[in-house]
């Protein structure tokens, strides 16, 4: 039996909390890869991100500066970590950190760190702030939406929208507002955390569906798994879901990938209305927290993304198991205070 090659892969998004980052699920996929063995370097922002303490999944963790610290600070920290660990592939898993990592792509490649990210143009174009334009350009049905930089203009939304509406942050969070007062509350809540613009979006009644997949940057669908959310938390996150076979969702995914030539992992958030029409609500430019369902359904997207990052030719997946479910759970780990102390004070564990 030939030994599998060993890769060192750095992964962010270790906050496996109630609104989880995808990191831990991505790592589970990587650990089950058929084409390589891997040593996982966890990159965290906060010392209490649960993934940092999951020693069966994460071999070594480092704290890194927040994306708002700027690319120089991030690069300096990654250089330090790379000197210690010799990273082969880096997988950023947060929307907010993609911008600096896309900008650093070439520098990282020169250092020997491979990534597989969308281009800056792709990243910007699919941004929820630009969703209206995106829908028009690619002929994809999207709910009407508009961006607002100040509350005064947002409160005039009744000229353009009917209640209820969705009030969304530019990166995260969305609330349903039924009147001006609620728009005001959510607008302030979101701007305090994520800044402006705030997006007001037509509320489409229906059932929530998602597709996760992988584009090769040439317009091909390398992987795609459609999922129906079965259990949704108060934060709107799927706590349970099932893989399904809706061909229209796969067609829409193919259309998205062939037209945008998307490069990297992604998640499409869709709403099916009472007339059975799909609306594209959002395109997340990275793998979702439920990515392990794709692995369970037969498409190991994290493994394939790593192979694409390394410049390998991969064959598109052509099938997957329908009716595979994920049911998320919360789990209390017991951690010695010394570990918390070490990650908090030295930034490493």
């Amino acid at each position, binding site marked *: 039996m030939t030994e599998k090659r060993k890769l060192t892969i750095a992964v962010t998004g270790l906050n496996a909390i109630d609104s989880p980052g995808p990191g831990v699920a991505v790592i589970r996929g990587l650990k089950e890869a058929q084409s390589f063995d891997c040593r996982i370097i966890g990159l965290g922002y906060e010392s209490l991100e649960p993934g940092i303490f999951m020693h069966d999944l994460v071999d070594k963790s480092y704290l890194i500066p927040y994306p708002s610290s700027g690319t120089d600070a991030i690069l300096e920290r990654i250089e330090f970590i790379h000197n210690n660990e010799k990273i082969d592939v880096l997988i950023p898993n947060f929307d907010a950190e993609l911008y600096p990592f896309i900008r650093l792509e070439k520098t990282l490649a020169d250092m020997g760190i491979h990534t597989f990210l969308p281009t800056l143009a792709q990243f910007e174009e699919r941004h929820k702030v630009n969703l209206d334009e995106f829908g028009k350009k690619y002929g994809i049905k999207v709910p009407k939406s508009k961006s607002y930089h100040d509350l005064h203009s947002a409160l005039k939304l009744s000229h353009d929208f009917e209640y209820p509406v969705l009030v969304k942050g530019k990166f995260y969070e969305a609330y349903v507002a039924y009147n001006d007062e609620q728009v005001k509350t959510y607008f302030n809540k979101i701007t305090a955390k994520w800044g402006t613009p705030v997006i007001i979006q037509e509320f489409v009644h229906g*059932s929530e569906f998602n597709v996760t997949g992988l584009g090769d940057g040439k317009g091909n669908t390398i992987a795609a798994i459609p*999922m*129906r959310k079965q259990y949704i938390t108060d934060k709107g996150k799927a706590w349970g*879901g*099932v893989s*399904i*076979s809706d061909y229209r969702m796969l067609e829409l995914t193919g259309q998205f990938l062939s037209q945008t030539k998307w490069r990297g992992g992604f998640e499409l958030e869709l709403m099916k209305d009472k007339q059975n029409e799909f609306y594209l609500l959002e395109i997340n430019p990275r793998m979702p927290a439920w990515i392990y369902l794709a692995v369970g359904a037969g498409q190991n997207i994290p493994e394939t993304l790593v192979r694409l990052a390394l410049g390998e030719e991969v064959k598109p997946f052509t099938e997957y198991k*329908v*009716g595979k479910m994920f049911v998320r759970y919360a789990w209390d780990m017991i951690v010695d205070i010394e570990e918390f102390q070490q990650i908090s004070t030295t930034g490493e564990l």
Partner: protein
Amino acid sequence: MRIKNNVAVSASGLIFNPDTGESFTVNPMGAMIINELKEGKSQEEIIATTIEKYFVEKNTFEKDFEDFLGLLHNFSLVEND
């Protein structure tokens, strides 16, 4: 009218529609009717088997059967021949 080919019906009466991800539970009579529709039996045949097996009055059952078929239709579990 027949049950869509890809709709799965378990022996215990769980129906899973792989197109939509919806699942439903039916009682043993419902499961029997669905399985017979899957086998391609006509509505007349199903009515005859059911009233014989469950000792129900024909008119009452026909009305309930129609309602049940309407539900299957609403949930996109059936397609027309």
